[in-house]
């Protein structure tokens, strides 16, 4: 079902959805980025159309809403444990097709990668509705088309929205919400559009040709020189899903405390550190190789599609100007021309 809203009508819709949902969207936080006077584009709660940032890519993805950076798993006191409580909150997340496709990857990792579903991820994920932001031009560092994540199937969103100069056109695909949309807008014919060509094209190496020999290639040693292991590529990535688990005993009462999980990143020191101090990926280039292989090889071998969605955030945030798309292309050239 297609609808057209004036800006005012769309705000009324948001107002009514706000009664039942926490609405998350990319927003512009004035002068809040790391560098002084720069704006931070990130996810936060919104109540109106005007708060939604539609002209710039968010620095971080929506992943942190469903997979919080730090999440308490359970509390313990004396000999007893209590699972961290859950809220009744329901969520609507505004996001572009690449980021919606990133959730497909997260779903695989948290719900299908092993014998158990991740209950903490699941209980949040089940309460999320996706509102896909139509994206037909992308940004300079995007390569979603190459990663086949430029399109979204209609079953994967509750609404698909085209933001226009004087309003919003959209398609609704969710019985829970149809009534609210109908109440505010007039019906129209609507056909989602997707970006068909990015400025950057990536050639993925043929998985069958990727062998262990490439592990030793000097391609990776270059990254040992350039990478500083800050982990920004991991934290900005919408599909990086590694975490570590920690216990804290409260200062005031050492018999009580909590177990929590926290994002970890394969580029960051300590990721491969084990008991006895053994560390098997000391070289930063090895970390780059590990990440690259996971994003465009291992995951795909297991789940039939690659993990990277080509959002280009890792390129945007790297302080050393390392480009992941460039790395994939270099790897492809090496594979094609022989190691």
């Amino acid at each position: 079902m297609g609808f057209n809203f004036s800006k005012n009508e769309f705000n009324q819709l948001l107002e009514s959805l706000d009664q039942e949902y926490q609405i998350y969207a990319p927003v512009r936080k004035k002068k809040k980025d790391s560098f002084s006077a720069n704006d931070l584009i990130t996810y936060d709660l919104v109540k109106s159309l005007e708060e939604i940032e539609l002209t710039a890519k968010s620095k971080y993805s929506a992943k942190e809403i469903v997979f919080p950076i730090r999440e308490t798993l359970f509390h313990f006191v004396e000999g007893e444990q209590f699972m961290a409580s859950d809220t009744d909150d329901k969520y609507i997340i505004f996001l572009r097709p690449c980021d919606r496709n990133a959730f497909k990857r997260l779903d695989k990792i948290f719900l299908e990668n092993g014998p158990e579903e991740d209950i903490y991820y699941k209980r949040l994920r089940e309460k999320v509705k996706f509102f896909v932001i139509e994206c037909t031009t992308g940004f300079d560092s995007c390569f979603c088309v190459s990663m086949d994540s430029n399109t979204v199937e209609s079953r994967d969103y509750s609404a698909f929205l085209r933001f226009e100069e004087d309003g919003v056109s959209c398609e609704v695909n969710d019985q829970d919400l149809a009534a609210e949309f109908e109440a505010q807008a007039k019906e129209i014919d609507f056909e989602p559009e997707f970006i068909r060509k990015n400025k950057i094209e990536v050639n993925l190496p043929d998985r069958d040709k990727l062998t262990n020999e490439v592990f030793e290639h000097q391609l990776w040693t270059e990254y040992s020189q350039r990478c500083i292991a800050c982990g920004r590529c991991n934290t900005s990535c919408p599909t990086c899903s590694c975490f570590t688990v920690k216990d804290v005993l409260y200062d005031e009462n050492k018999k009580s405390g909590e177990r929590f999980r926290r994002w970890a990143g394969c580029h960051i020191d300590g990721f491969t550190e084990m008991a006895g101090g053994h560390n098997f990926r000391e070289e930063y280039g090895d970390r780059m190789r590990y990440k690259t292989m996971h994003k465009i090889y291992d995951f795909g071998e297991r789940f039939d599609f690659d993990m990277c969605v080509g959002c280009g955030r890792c390129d945007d945030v790297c302080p050393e100007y390392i480009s992941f798309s460039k790395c994939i292309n270099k790897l492809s050239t090496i594979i094609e021309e022989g190691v």
Partner: protein
Amino acid sequence: MSFNTKKIKKNAFRITKDREVTALRIRVPGGHIDAHYLSLIKEIADEHGDGTLHITTRQGFEVPGISFADFEEVNEKIAPILEGMEKEIGVEIVDPGDGYPAAGTRNVSACIGNRVCRYSNYDTTELAQEIEKNIFPNDYHVKIALSGCPNDCIKGHLQDFGILGMIEPIYHQERCIGCEACVDNCKKRVTSALSFEQERVVRDEQRCIGCGECILQCPTNAWERGGQFFKVVIMGRTGKKNPRLAKPFLKWASRDVVISIVNNVYDYIERHIDTSLAKEHIGYIVDRTGYPQFKEEILKGVELNSECEIADKINWNGYQTGEKI
């Protein structure tokens, strides 16, 4: 040739070692200049000077080799500079064609600031221009320089007032991944104000110098840019008598406090200056009145922000140049 040297000097022309020859000092408030002014400065150097320019330590230009006979003509030619670089930012200039109305208070210099530099905590040029507007023209000898962060690349520690940008870092534990990049960096490069305890970062407020490095290091924006503050270091100087580095006067001062204290300096000088000297520098006046007197007068009527810390005592030390090394 006969002229009043005092008037000429006030007009920003120098009495040079060569008779009949002068040099013009051009101010660049905040050290940032629209490039088109360079063509005008070049024209003056070519037509009236010796075709060279000296770049001053205070970020101005000095045009040497000008004949005293030309000085009125040169003044007329630099009118667009006074118009655009002084009047435009609010400095009271009666007639831009008369040249600079004063030279005592020196150009307010600034590091490149947050228009370019990743470390800077504010727009140094903008604040320098605001200060220039308030204190220029003025005959008293006061040197002020602004740095974006405590690195103090502009060397505010050698000025009467060094104004260094501070930022209050606000920690959001819920965004912290415990990578300790901020802690390690603070330990290695700053003051070890951060530690990692109970899986969270703890900031020692006394040790923190507000440099903002932790904010820059963080890969998740767990450190947020909070309030904008300044550290003010005072009475640093070079000179023949007693060179010394400036010492901290205020920490976590607000922008309004910085602007107000700089404005108050001139009344203090007025009251205490030794007029038997050609132009007594403010640092020597403070040596005479003592810091407590200076502090009382300069803070008069200033509404201090609650975060602002003030030095109880200051001992500048430095060294006496006449002593055996």
